[in-house]
C-alpha cells in the first residue's frame, strides 16, 4: 500500500490527499487533468483494467455532478478510485477511451443517465434509453415515474410514453437530501392510499 501511496503522490492533477477507507484509496483529480492522470496510472503504474466509470448527482451541492473511475491493477492486485467534480454549467470531461477502450460504454452510460459529455469520445450516444429521448433519467430531480415523452415512429408505433403510475410502486423516491429512509420509503404509502385509509376508518 505504501508503494501505491507514493505512486499517487505523483499523480498528475491530484487534488488533496488520497483518502483511504477500508483499504480502498480515493483520489480527487482536477477535471482538466483526468486524461493525464489515467494515462499515468496505466502506463507508469500498471493499472491495466478499468472496472467502472460512474456518474454521480450530488443534488443540492456545488459542484453538482461527479465522475468516478474505478481502476484496477492486475499485476499489483490493487484498486484505486479517481473522482472528478463536474459543475452543472460546464458538464464536459475528457474521454479516457484512448487509455482504456472499455471506457466507451461506461461513458455512454454516464452520458445517457446524467448528461455528462465526454470530449473526444468516439461514439457518444445513448446506450440504455432510446435515441431521441429528451431527458437524463438518473438525475435526482427526474421523477422515477418518468415524464411524458414523444415516442418515435421506429419504436412501438408512434405515440406518447406516459409517466408510469406511481401508486403501489415500492420505491417511490423524493428528490433532494435527507436520510435514505425518508427518500426511499420501502413501503408504498402514497397520498391517495392515505386518503383511502382515512375514508375507511
Amino acid at each position, binding site marked *: 500500500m505504501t508503494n501505491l501511496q507514493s505512486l499517487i503522490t505523483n499523480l498528475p492533477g491530484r487534488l488533496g490527499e488520497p483518502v483511504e477507507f477500508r483499504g480502498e484509496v480515493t483520489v480527487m483529480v482536477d477535471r482538466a487533468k483526468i486524461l493525464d492522470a489515467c494515462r499515468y496510472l496505466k502506463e507508469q503504474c500498471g493499472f491495466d483494467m478499468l472496472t467502472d466509470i460512474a456518474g454521480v448527482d450530488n443534488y443540492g451541492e456545488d459542484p453538482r455532478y461527479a465522475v468516478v473511475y474505478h481502476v484496477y491493477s492486475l499485476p499489483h492486485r490493487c484498486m484505486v478510485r479517481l473522482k472528478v467534480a463536474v459543475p452543472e454549467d460546464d458538464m464536459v470531461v475528457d474521454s479516457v477511451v484512448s487509455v482504456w477502450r472499455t471506457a466507451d460504454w461506461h461513458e455512454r452510460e454516464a452520458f445517457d443517465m446524467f448528461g455528462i459529455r465526454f470530449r473526444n469520445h468516439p461514439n457518444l450516444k445513448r446506450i*440504455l*434509453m432510446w435515441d431521441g429521448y429528451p431527458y437524463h433519467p438518473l438525475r435526482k430531480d*427526474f421523477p*422515477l415515474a418518468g415524464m411524458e415523452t414523444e415516442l418515435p415512429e421506429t419504436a*412501438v*408505433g408512434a405515440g406518447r*410514453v406516459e409517466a*408510469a*403510475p406511481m401508486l*403501489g410502486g415500492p420505491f417511490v423516491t423524493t428528490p433532494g437530501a435527507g436520510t435514505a429512509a425518508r427518500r426511499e420509503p420501502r413501503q408504498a404509502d402514497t397520498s391517495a392510499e392515505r386518503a383511502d385509509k382515512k375514508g375507511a376508518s
Partner: protein
Amino acid sequence: MSDPVVIGVDQKIESRDLIVTRLDAAVDWCRKNSVWPMPMGLACCAIELMAAGASRFDIARFGAEVMRFSPRQSDLMIVAGTCVYKMAGVVKRVWDQMAEPKWCIAMGACASTGGMYRSYAVVQGVDRFLPVDVYISGCPPRPEALLEGLMALQRKIQQEAALKNMKRSDQRGGLYAMPQGPVIVRGEYAPQMGDRRLEIGGRK
C-alpha cells in the same frame, strides 16, 4: 353407369376409423396441439420458461416443445420478463414477422402490467402494443402456472372460428381485436415440503 356412391348417414360404417366432426373443430384441434412458441425471454421469467421446457415439467406433453427462435416459424409469442421501451420496438417487430394465426402469452407480472417497475423505462404491460391472449400472474410464475396458461390458450384456440378467420385474414388481425377476450391465469403456487399435489393456477 355405375351406381352413385352413397356416403354419410346412409352408409353403414364397418370399421371404427372414421370420425365425423366440424372442420373448424378439427383445424382448431390441430392448431392447439402443436403450438410452436417464440420464447421472448427478457428477464427472470425466461428461467421459468426454460424450466417448463425441460424434462421435469416437460411442455412437450402439451405439444408446445418446439421453441422457435425464428418468428417465421412460430405461432405463440411468450413474452417472459420485463419489457423496456427500447426493447418494445424489437418485440413488436418480431411479433409483426410472425405469420397468422398467432397468439401471445404475457408471462409474469412485468409482462402483464410492468410489475414492480413503475418507472420511466418500463412498458406498463406488453398489452400496450401486443394483443395478449393469456396473462399469467406471478413473479415469476412457476412452470405449472405457465402450463396452465398454455392449457387456457388451448381452450381458447379450440373455440376459435378457424375457417372464418382464414377467409378474412385481417379479422383477428386488426391486431387488437380479441373476440373472446383475454384469459387471466392466477399463478399463485406456494410449494410446501412434502406436498405431493400440484396445485395449478391457484385451484384448491
